[in-house]
């Protein structure tokens, strides 16, 4: 993958993170629901975070 594309993909994932970590998506998960014993908000935040990290790792490591 050429460098320009890699940069663009990384920045795009950053913007995705910015959207996932903020209002209004955050408000969607601000409920009393429980996912596998943990609160939905906590599960969502760590899940989205892990997703962003996985994407970053995938893009950064791909050639």
């Amino acid at each position, binding site marked *: 993958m050429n460098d320009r594309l*890699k*940069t663009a993909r*990384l*920045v795009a*994932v*950053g913007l995705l*993170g*910015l959207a996932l*970590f*903020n*209002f209004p998506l*955050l*408000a969607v998960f*601000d*409920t*009393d629901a*429980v996912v*596998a*014993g*943990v*609160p939905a*908000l*906590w599960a969502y*935040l*760590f899940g989205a*975070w*892990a997703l*962003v*990290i*996985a994407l*970053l*790792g995938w893009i*950064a*490591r791909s050639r």
Partner: protein
Amino acid sequence: MIDTRVIVVASAAYLALLFVIAYFGDRRADRGRSIISNGYIYALSIGVYASSWTYYGSVGRAATTGVGFLPIYLGATVMAAGWWLMLRKIIRICKQNRITSLADFISSRYGKSAVLGGLVTVIAVAGIVPYIALQLKAISNSFTILRGEPELAMTVAADPPILTDTALYVALLLAAFTIVFGTRHLDATERHEGMVAAIAFESLVKLVAFLAVGFYVTYVSFRGFGDLFGRARSDPDLAHLLRFGETQSYGSWLWLIVLSMLAILFLPRQWQLAVVENVDENHIKTATWVFPLYLLLINIFVLPIAIAGLVTFGSGGVSADAFVLVLPMADQQAMLTLFVFIGGLSAATGMVIVETIALSTMVSNSLVLPILLRRRSALADGRDLGRAILRIRRATIVAVLLLGFAYFRVADDALALVSIGLISFAAVAQFAPAILGGLYWRGATGRGATWGLLAGFVVWAYTLPLPSLAATGLVPESFVEDGPFGVGLLAPYALFGLDGLDEVSHSMLWSMLVNVGLFVGLSLTGRREPAEHVQASAFVDAFTHVGGGADARLWRGSATVGELRVLLARFLGDDGTRAALASYAAGTGADVSPGAAAEPELVQHVEALLAGAVGSAAARFIVGSVVEEEPLAVDEVLQILEETSEVLAYSRALERKSQQLQAATTELRHANERLQELDRLKDDFVSTVTHELRTPLTSIRAFSEILSDNPDLDPTERGDYLRIVVQETERLTRLINQVLDLSKLESGAAEWHIEPVDLGEIVTTSAHATAQIFREREVDLEVDMPGSAPIVRADRDRLVQVLLNLLSNAVKFCPRETGRVQIGIETRDGVARVDVRDNGPGIADADREVIFEKFRQGGDTRTNRPAGTGLGLPISRQIVEHLGGRLWVESHAGEGATFSFTLPVAVVGAGSPAGAEAREGET
């Protein structure tokens, strides 16, 4: 609970281990085998971001706001995604310009301004001191808690006398440690490999320690995440921690994300490790995902620990900032507690060491040296300045730590750990416009950056640290509540009546508004200094910028190599200087003997070397002290820039040329194809001509042989044979003449006598010349001519040749007795047209163009071969086209044919006598 001596010995042993690692790292670096040249170590060293704030403070914040501790790490993750874009550019710039600190970066970007560098340094120190106080507080509190009972966490508020305050000794110990780590020698690259190795190790220790205590609390003290979250849900006092809640707003959440995005780049310690200590740009790729992963791991147990603490101690029993330490203590887990303490020590010492090293570089290079160097005497007395710089740095380290201690004493329990940290984040966020603008906006000026920074800093100081002191009594409460002198509009937490935001968002809003506003406003309205032009393009175009060349010419002055050598030696030492000059000479082949005059490139190289050690602004002063620099006028800079644009213009011209060449190549290829086609045609022509020549020759030879073999031939027969031989000879001659004629015409070698010719006269002449043939074949010839025949510019004989050709063709195809040929002349729109119409068999559609080709005649040439050479029409067409006209035929099989040609009219003849003669000449 744990004996003081055990704690002290364990801490000392840990610090000794760190020192061993650092020493080992430095040794390996000296031997050129770096142990930190690895993306994972790089990422771990950036993990210095997680300081005591993270280690102790996150749990404290989680205990009151639930997930409110997270945005600081989420923001860092978002920014990590932009590292490959932004951090890489910063690193590239710093390596190209030998920039070793954030202050130097900003100063260098805006024309190596000493004022700007000093301002940045002051802001950085003022902003970071509270942060260092936070670390001291964390270490000293954890120490106190560890010695006593968990409940003691509440009672540290009673300040001990200064000399018995643990924090003082912690501060002094850390100062000593940092001095040994960070200021062993002055180095042009300002890199500390051993320190980085130690910091990476510390990151590992604090992560493992925090995961250990998290795992213990969650899975040993309690029964996992589900159990803890379940208890929180069923407790009405804790249930709000699982929701976003009313304790925070989405607005301040966003502000915290933005703050941390900026902090992860612009905190001096982050800058030091991510930029200055970077070994290889490619390590950024690893850090982009490993560092966020590190943050995720270290935060995963934060909320569970906070809930466990609240469940165990109830709210208000123990400071939530101490839960990490107190929870294992309460379970009598001495070893784990000690390990957790060591982890906390790692978090705090790592931060303090790197932060003070970064600050000391800034203070010495961007604040003290420029002031010192203003007095030229500092350079004149020949002292070893390298040592002086190291002393300045050591003093700075001690001073910064003591300042931190002072802040700690004054503001100790007024704020939680996280609140103190956020004050620092907001301070370094002020650098964002100047740096990001400087990276991507060519038009950013030093004036805009200076005033923006200054104003942002003042607003920050007024709206964050100043009112925070109110809790200590240093500033009266009324100042915060009602504003200075009762002016409510100036109340520091609600400036101009802006109420309802939390204090950090409020401060960020106002400080960023004035900072960005002034930065952009002044940049757009002011002029750039000459030096700024050059630096702006060096920074903005870092990926395409080529050093040397134009830049070197900015130094116009005279100095000898000897003078520069002496200068360098005072900063880098004799050995360092010799090595540096030798490698320069080896690289460029320049003369570096002491007596030689220094080239501009060498002067620039020396400045770059010095910039690494003392910062760019100071380096310029120092080099300026020996180089008799002539001031560089604006027009000269503009000339340099012009030359650059000329080069650009050349390259564009080259591009154009290459396009033209490409077009020419295409044309040539077409021409070549055409040439090959012509070559083929020529071959055809030659074979046809030989064939045509052979036919009469064969017949001449045959009849001559008959005549020679039979001398007693009948005289009439003999006469017939001789006539055939003569006819064939004539045909042969005609053929050869025409071939010669055609080749002359085609090659352009034919002679032309162009003159005004009366077309009527030509027609008449031709009609007269062919009258005999017409009579012989009993074909009528009619000439239809207007009163005044047009005058054309032509070669008279050639034109007659054309007409003779057309007429003899016409008569040839006309039927005997009923045959009729008409000649018409008309003039229209400046074009004269001659038509020769016959009532012969006509020409088939397929043959209409073929007949104009050489040796091609209408009809089936094998069976019905008319007399003639097949060259008349091609020759006629050549002639007419040469004279600027057209020759064509209109015909349908069975209806006769009309051959027409046109010629441009030169003068319209006003009644020519030739016209009348022509009519008379009709047959």
